[in-house]
């Protein structure tokens, strides 16, 4: 292998400009050059057009490229079951006896990353994987220069995959359209082709073209832009709706437990936020326990959080709430006290600092529907998850006797007893269920926001707002309220800014309650008066 | 007169010293116009809940000073009718007039109560946290606006009136007990007492003798008959003996409309009434 490389190097060196150094010396220089001078070396390395350098570039981009202090040999850091190990970039052979103390990182910064990405893209134009090729071409759209154009033109006829072909043609068209030396008709034709693409770089190119001195070209570009913009706007609306839904799903998750403890049981549960917080911390602990299985940690965390928060809920119910029957307002006082205690408890155990909860790889990134519309995966999962939890809860309350019993207990405790309902058990179970669900919400929220002692505080007010807005005691109301508020917020935000949007939503709630003093879905009937 | 003079005149009128501005003048508790002898007109009332017709084209006329008994099967709409009259529920259609002039449907509960329509609820509702005495004091016929209430003092006549009522309802000993601690029957009496002190023109009484002993029932009957004449009383009751002992005219409701109306004897022999309400046996008595 080594020989092969040196052979190649010799080959290249023979027709490279004289000042160009060999790959080997360039790599050698990596270990000594200052950060600000590194871009030069990248350029020179790129000029080698050597595919075998790809792993080096990739590792560098990822910040994994190191060199051994003694030998100046370039190595790549990999992760073997949570420990650092080092491999040779060219052979991928693991190098024994090197530990993190023996190596030093080859620095990388934004400028370098940008360069490296371009270099990698160029090298990947001939990759075996069609997706990679498409990505590579897209990467190059930003500035298609003569070389790229030539390379692409060369590759185009050989390309078999249609998507890649289209992307290539887009790149070619950009070049043609921008190229003042080509004929007006071919430029206009190229622009017309570009009109069908939503790629950002295409739009930027068209923007430039619309100021072109050639009037026909400028007109064509304008036309294409109008068309593109119309589509972009349509997708922006979809995007906004998605933002609204996903904010709604967060609100739903945060408030759904409260819809039980407060809405159904009538306990003004100020410690609800802390139940969410406990769930989030449970996620953190679960990830601590299984650092190598972050991807699966969520599946452990969900039941664990349910149990932790649920048991805490049962404990609170048994120790405190159960002595406050018939005194709903007092529950406010007691649970407020409990929430202070829980917050401080967490602060004492886990320190006041935020804890790090990692996002499983399958939840990060986004689902790209097209270049202008992509939905972030974690939000998407959380939306689905919120709906799932909601359905499960509705199912539990409708199908098991628990739902019926808890409503009976909250409406007339002593009569429920006289009918043989085990009120204490029902109370404990229901409060546990509500708290447990809050815990599950905590798992979801840990993916979006800080996991710290104040996590619960941030959501408690919104939660009450949602439950009340939807109509106390009505689960469906909670669902609709959460999504309404989420969407309203997100549609207001672009015009008013985040702060005003929040204020307007609050004012809207206040006014709405005037119209419907019992929320969206009020309890009806004689007894409700 | 020129327009200018007109406006001067208007201004003068506005600032006349011998009278307060109209918007400051206390609202006169408008008189109930009963020139046609009729005090309550209920016409074409319809009210449905989620598609269920609780009141169905109901017509009812009550004379001034009359004692009217309202009977009817459970769920016939008696309580609902009272709800409509007192402004608690708004009907889908129909009209309710108090005297010739007062359209009750445009007024709210407090207005209606101030016009002189008092009500006793089927399920006794009193102010549980306050004493029996306070319950009665609150029900007194007084100026019920905020400021006058703030500066109100009990006048000796009012105290006498409350005392009188306390002895009528037999709660003299419990006068300083919290109303919430009364037994069911005692609450019934208290509520009747609250009605009495408020000195209403029209009394709507929903099942006054439920939970009372026979003798108490008799006393209630006496009380109600004595009230009639000066006041108008509408009583709902299922106790036929009681109804017979007080009734002059009886109206039978069924499924939200009037089924029959007449004297007790007429009603008792009415086939329909027997079938849906009284049952064979009761009719024999």
């Amino acid at each position: 292998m080594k020989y092969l490389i040196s052979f190649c190097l010799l080959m290249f060196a023979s027709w490279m400009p004289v000042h160009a150094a060999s790959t080997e010396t360039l790599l050698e220089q990596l270990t000594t050059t200052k950060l600000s001078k590194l871009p030069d070396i990248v350029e020179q390395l790129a000029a080698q057009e050597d595919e075998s350098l790809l792993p080096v570039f990739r590792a560098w981009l990822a910040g994994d490229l190191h060199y051994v202090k003694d030998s100046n040999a370039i190595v790549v850091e990999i992760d073997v079951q949570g420990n650092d190990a080092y491999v040779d970039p060219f052979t991928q052979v693991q190098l024994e006896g090197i530990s993190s103390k023996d190596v030093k990182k080859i620095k990388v910064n934004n400028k370098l990353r940008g360069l490296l990405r371009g270099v990698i893209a160029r090298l990947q134009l001939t990759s075996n994987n069609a997706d990679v090729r498409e990505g590579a071409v897209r990467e190059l759209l930003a500035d298609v220069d003569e070389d790229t154009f030539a390379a692409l033109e060369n590759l185009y006829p050989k390309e078999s995959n249609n998507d890649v072909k289209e992307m290539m043609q887009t790149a070619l068209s950009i070049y043609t359209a921008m190229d003042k030396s080509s004929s007006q008709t071919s430029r206009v034709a190229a622009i017309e082709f570009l009109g069908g693409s939503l790629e950002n770089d295409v739009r930027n190119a068209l923007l430039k073209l619309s100021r072109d001195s050639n009037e026909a070209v400028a007109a064509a570009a304008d036309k294409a832009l109008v068309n593109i913009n119309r589509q972009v706007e349509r997708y922006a609306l979809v995007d906004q709706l998605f933002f609204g839904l996903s904010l709604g799903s967060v609100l739903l998750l945060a408030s759904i437990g409260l819809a039980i403890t407060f809405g159904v049981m009538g306990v003004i549960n100020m410690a609800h936020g802390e139940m969410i917080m406990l769930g989030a911390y449970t996620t953190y602990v679960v990830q601590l326990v299984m650092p190598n299985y972050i991807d699966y940690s969520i599946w452990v965390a969900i039941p664990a959080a349910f149990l932790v928060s649920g048991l805490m809920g049962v404990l609170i119910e048994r120790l405190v709430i159960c002595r406050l029957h018939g005194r709903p307002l007092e529950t406010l006082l007691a649970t407020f006290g409990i929430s202070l205690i829980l917050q401080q408890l967490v602060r004492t155990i886990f320190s006041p600092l935020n804890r790090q909860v990692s996002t499983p790889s399958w939840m990060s990134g986004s689902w790209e529907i097209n270049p202008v519309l992509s939905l972030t995966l974690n939000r998407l999962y959380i939306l689905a998850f919120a709906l799932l939890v909601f359905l499960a809860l509705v199912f539990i309350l409708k199908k098991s006797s628990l739902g019926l019993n808890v409503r009976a207990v909250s409406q007339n405790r002593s009569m429920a007893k006289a009918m043989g309902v085990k009120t204490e058990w029902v109370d404990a179970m229901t409060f546990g269920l509500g708290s447990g669900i809050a815990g599950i919400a905590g798992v979801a929220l840990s993916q979006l926001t800080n996991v710290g002692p104040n996590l619960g505080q941030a959501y408690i007010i919104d939660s009450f707002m949602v439950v009340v807005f939807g109509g106390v005691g009505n689960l469906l109301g909670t669902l609709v309220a959460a999504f309404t508020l989420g969407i309203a917020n997100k549609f207001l935000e672009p015009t008013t800014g985040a702060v005003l949007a929040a204020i307007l939503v609050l004012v809207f709630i206040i006014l709405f309650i005037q119209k419907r003093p019992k929320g969206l879905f009020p309890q009806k009937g004689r007894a409700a008066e | 007169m020129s327009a200018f003079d007109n406006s001067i005149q208007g201004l003068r009128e506005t600032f006349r010293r011998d009278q307060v501005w109209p918007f400051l003048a206390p609202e006169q508790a408008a008189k109930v116009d009963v020139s046609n002898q009729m005090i309550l007109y209920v016409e074409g009332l319809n009210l449905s809940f989620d598609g269920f017709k609780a009141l169905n084209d109901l017509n009812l006329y009550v004379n001034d000073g009359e004692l009217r008994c309202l009977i009817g099967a459970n769920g016939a709409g008696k309580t609902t009718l009272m709800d409509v009259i007192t402004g608690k529920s708004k009907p889908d259609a129909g009209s309710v007039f108090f005297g010739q002039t007062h359209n009750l449907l445009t007024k709210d509960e407090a207005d209606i109560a101030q016009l002189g329509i008092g009500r006793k609820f089927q399920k006794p509702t009193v102010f549980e946290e306050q004493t029996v005495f306070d319950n009665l004091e609150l029900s007194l016929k007084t100026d019920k606006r905020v400021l006058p209430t703030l500066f109100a003092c009990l006048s000796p006549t009012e105290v006498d009136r409350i005392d009188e009522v306390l002895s009528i309802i037999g709660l003299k000993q419990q006068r300083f007990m919290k109303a919430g601690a009364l037994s069911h029957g005692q609450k019934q009496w208290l509520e009747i007492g609250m009605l009495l002190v408020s000195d209403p023109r029209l009394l709507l009484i929903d099942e006054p003798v439920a939970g009372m002993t026979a003798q108490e029932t008799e006393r209630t009957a006496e009380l109600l008959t004595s009230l009639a004449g000066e006041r108008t009383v509408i009583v709902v009751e299922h106790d036929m003996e009681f109804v017979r002992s007080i009734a002059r005219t009886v109206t039978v409701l069924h499924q939200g409309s009037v089924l029959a109306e007449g004297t007790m004897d007429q009603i008792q022999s009415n086939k329909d009434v027997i079938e849906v309400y009284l049952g064979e046996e009761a009719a024999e008595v």
Partner: protein
Amino acid sequence: MIAMNKVSQLYGGTQILWDLDLDIEPGSITCIMGRNGVGKTTLMKAIMGLLPIKSGEITMNNQALHKLSAERRAYEGIGYVPQGRDIFPMLTVEENLRIGLPVRKSKEIPEKIFELFPVLKEMLHRRGGDLSGGQQQQLAIGRALVLEPKVLILDEPNEGIQPNIVKQIGDVILKLNEEEGLTVILIEQKLGFARRVGKEFRLMEKGRIVAADKMENLNDDLIKQYLAV
């Protein structure tokens, strides 16, 4: 069947029941009477376990009842129709009836209830709180019957019920008593109904039982002494 021995009970600082003794025969229909506020309802709540007693004991078939919680007593076979009905207002009629099903270990509401009170079937999906007073009363009785109790406590069951249904309720009580040997404790103010349905009576005054006998022996003297105002 049910016996009470020197039961005392207080509300806050106020004593309502004073060393009260009461004995209910199995299969009897006992009518408890007394003026307003003498403590009839309180007594019933004590039997059901909704109010803690201060001293004394309550037994059912010689088994101590006063140590059990109310829900256990329901399982032991006591059914309760409270004064003022205490329907679960936001539950539908059907749900009101279903509450008691676990006690009788069955999944379906017995058809018998609807035969007794057909109106309940009509109103099955209406909220309990929306029903008229009388309908609620019927629901309350029906709800207690779902438990298939051995002892049925009825606290003024006829309050606000139309005459033909009053009669029907009387019939039902008698029928259940005869056919199934149901023991009934009935609080009733209306003498006519009490005489028709009751087999025994107990008169109460100021938290004590002051007279107990067969219903035939309820004479005007007693009535005058203990029931008149």
